[in-house]
């Protein structure tokens, strides 16, 4: 197993700062903005983006947490030997109605998690718009989904593993690309 660092702690912070600036610019009215992190690592990332937006505009957008386990397509009848994902909390402190909801996740890969997140969100109301912010886009989409805000695009092979660590969940922070070495 070889492990190459793609972003260090400062790299993660700089990527998030840039995403926060783009969010403010592109959403226009930050009072409409609602950051919703996808469990697990999307949640602390959403909180950090909210803090950066608050520092820049003086208005802190609300932050929610979304668990997509009950909406996934890679469990249930589609996989023979599967494991039901552990449920985590969904907490949306204010209604998503008429908000510009920005989903926040650590890695964008096949797009299936985002599809599940979109369906989950729609069951909570009717947002004015939904955007997508990810720290890492590693390619290999299986669904017609694209991110609006990307921290770092990392070209990868299927066999490689993108490891995102954030201090709130893992104690360390950074992005690594890991691959099995043959032999």
């Amino acid at each position: 197993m070889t492990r190459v660092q793609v972003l260090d702690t400062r790299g993660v912070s700089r990527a998030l700062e840039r995403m926060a600036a783009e969010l403010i610019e592109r959403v226009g009215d930050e009072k409409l903005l609602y950051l919703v992190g996808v469990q697990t690592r999307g949640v602390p990332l959403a909180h950090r983006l909210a803090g950066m937006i608050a520092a820049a505009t003086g208005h802190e957008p609300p932050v929610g947490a979304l668990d997509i386990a009950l909406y996934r397509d890679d469990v249930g009848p589609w996989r023979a030997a599967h494991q039901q994902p552990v449920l985590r909390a969904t907490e949306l402190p204010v209604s998503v109605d008429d908000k510009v909801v920005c989903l926040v996740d650590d890695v964008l890969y096949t797009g299936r998690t985002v599809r599940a997140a979109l369906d989950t969100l729609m069951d909570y109301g009717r947002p004015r718009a939904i955007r997508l912010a990810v720290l890492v886009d590693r390619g290999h989409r299986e669904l017609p989904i694209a991110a609006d805000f990307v921290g770092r695009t990392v070209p990868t092979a299927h066999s490689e593993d993108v490891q995102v660590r954030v201090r709130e969940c893992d104690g360390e922070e950074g992005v690594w690309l890991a691959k099995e070495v043959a032999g």
Partner: protein
Amino acid sequence: MSVQPAARLRRKDLVGIDPLSAGEIQLILDTADQMREIAARPIKKVPALRGKTVVNLFMEASTRTRFSFEVAEKRLSADSLSFSAAASSVSKGETLVDTALNLEAMQPDFIVIRHVHAGAPHQLARILKSSVINAGDGAHEHPTQALLDALTIRLHRGTLEGQVVAIVGDLQHSRVVRSNVLLLSRMGAKVRVAAPASMVPVGIEALGCEVHRRIEDAIAGADVVMMLRIQLERQGRMNFPTVREYYDFFALTPERLKLAKRDCLVMHPGPMNRGVEIDSRVADGPQSVILEQVTNGVAVRMAVLYLLAGGHGEPTAD
């Protein structure tokens, strides 16, 4: 933090609390805790069990448990069919096994069974490919009731460990008490039971509880008091002289409740006989969580269905 949750429920069936480990119980309770939130959503439905079929095979009267399972199934998007013994071929003499095999021939994924005889769910679990969930078998087990009781206690107290739980009433005919004693003792609670001597089954202490002859001794200093229904329909002969006398000696009254901890929870699995085992002033009082138990029942049944849908492990060992 007391018990670590298991990574998964590697089971086909839920026939009782007895086969479950503490970690598996913790996983079901943790999952149920998250399921509660679905009831507060504008759209109270998730697609997790889309395309799954559940047959509710209720061979004995039930309102709360059957409705609770049906609501749980619908909230998870499963298709559910409910079966009542009176309007079926059971009244024409078909055996349970034949009924179950015929239902299974229609490819359901789950069979939820309530039956008057202990062991009926176990028998079906062995012969059917579907997941079997015990919704009460005779005087044996009622696992989802014990799980919803445990969730209710945990939501109020944060843990089951060290809680003193008094269970009072018809121990002889109660499946609720068996599942509860097994679950609570496995999770580190201290369980006391009390009933008239004529209603204490031989050997009940072996399940992991202290046996008392007076309600006062059982509830003194308790964190939770769980009252059991006097099952008048199951009494071949009365085990006490009169209902009035039972009330006088064994009912939970406001005076007796003062013996327990000040914030002691009052629970009852329902249906209640007001004025027999429980006084209305207690049943409707500020310490009563009886209706919360009903709400939590839906979340627990959703959790069990969800987790078993990912099972496909080895068949249930008794």
